[in-house]
């Protein structure tokens, strides 16, 4: 057996099968597991907290993915053009990507601190607010804060993916179009955009998968608050497994989340596949 197969077997297939097996049990963290068939899946149907966590995760995924692309695509176009200090720009935009998500979250917790952070005291010093506002204390501002943090952290990565797509477009095509009298907008929508289909598909699938599985930033920055309004699907699975100690039920929730993720990824790839290749 080749090492690759061995590694996939140990670190992917075995845990996957084990999770599936555990999901058919009442499996407490301490104590003896008991086989209960599909009971966990039946319980799930009425588990409103899980479905509301799922709903929140989907909303977060849509919002954060749009935000990331809205920032990353202009950045990619910006650093694609030959200009002075291009290396500095590329490095600067990519830099937050190499910070761990946990460390980045902790950094932003401090930036967002109402008394000793950056934003609240700055708003007060500038005279924009009378009292410092706890940005993580209300849902709206907490949600926006996390989206801004994630965009700051991830946009550089998406930018690099989109940049490879931009650079794989042959210059001759654009030149020929220009000679034929096409303006910059026409070139963008008729040549650049269609030829980046595959790159978009890759960046989109990565972004959506990452967002559906979001946990760290919510655990660290809001602890699921204010008042449990920012609990994601993975957060709920974590709570089920390691706060309530129901490992079997947590495994069943994980399997459902996996199914949702596979379904979403397949849908995206179908929508964004090359017409010619199909």
């Amino acid at each position, binding site marked *: 057996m080749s090492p690759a197969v061995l590694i996939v077997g140990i670190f992917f297939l075995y845990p996957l099968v084990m999770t599936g097996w555990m999901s058919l049990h009442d499996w407490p963290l301490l104590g003896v597991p008991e086989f209960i068939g599909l009971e966990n899946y039946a319980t799930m149907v009425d588990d409103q907290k899980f479905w509301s966590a799922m709903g929140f995760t989907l909303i977060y995924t849509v919002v954060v993915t749009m935000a990331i692309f809205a920032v990353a695509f202009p950045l990619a176009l910006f650093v694609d053009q030959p200009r002075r200090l291009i290396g500095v720009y590329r490095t600067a935009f990519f830099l937050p990507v190499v910070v761990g998500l946990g460390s980045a979250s902790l950094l932003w917790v401090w930036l967002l*601190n*109402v*008394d000793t952070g950056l934003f*609240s005291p700055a708003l007060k010093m500038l005279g924009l607010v009378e*009292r*410092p*506002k*706890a940005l*993580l*204390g*209300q849902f709206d501002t*907490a949600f926006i804060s996390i989206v801004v943090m994630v965009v700051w952290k991830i946009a550089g990565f998406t930018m690099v993916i989109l940049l490879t797509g931009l650079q794989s477009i042959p210059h001759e095509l654009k030149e020929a179009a220009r000679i034929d009298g096409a303006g910059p907008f026409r070139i963008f929508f008729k040549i650049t955009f269609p030829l980046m289909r595959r790159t978009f598909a890759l960046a989109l699938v990565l972004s959506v998968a990452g967002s559906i599985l979001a946990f760290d930033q919510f655990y660290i920055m*809001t*602890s*699921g*608050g*204010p*008042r*449990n309004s920012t*609990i994601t699907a993975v*957060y709920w699975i974590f*709570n089920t497994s390691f*706060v*309530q*100690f129901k490992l079997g039920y947590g495994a069943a929730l994980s399997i459902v989340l996996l199914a949702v993720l596979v379904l979403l990824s397949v849908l995206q790839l179908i929508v964004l596949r090359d017409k010619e290749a199909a």
Partner: protein
Amino acid sequence: MEKGLLPEGAASDPGSNFLAFQNGNIGIQALGAFAIGVFAGNADLNYGVTLIPNEEGTAASSFLGGENLVVTKGTAPDKIAVVQKFLEFAYTAERQAEAAKLGSLPVRTDIADEALAGLDARYAEAAKAVAIGRTPYSTVFNELFNDPNGPYAQFMADGMFGDDLDAAIAAAQEDMQAIVDSAN
């Protein structure tokens, strides 16, 4: 809760600052008696201890928590006898006094005065809570009370920052009952 009485940061405080009382900027805080032992190292801190009063100030209430001595299911009968002996030992006046010295309140109210003799007088005040306090006990205690996303934490936040205390109490009651029911 009237708006503006609580510091802005309270709404997003995950509880990691709950000993901030000793910084001297907080007027009043609900804490366990263990804090008396923690604050003992802080000679500059001048504070008093009292029980949590009701609205009219005529009675007090308390929540009794602590560590448990537990015998697990399936323990052999010959070992049970030894465990029994240890439990009796742990509840002697001598051991209760020793635990008090290390910062734990004596659980035997009949010998509390004896066990607390010569210690910080604030312990004696806190020890009154043992007689009136209630301890909810459940196999799902962790889910009910300790989970930062659980019904108890949600209830406190709803009560402090929301507008409808009665609704918060009702919601917490329903949530907690659902957890208890699903555990059986």
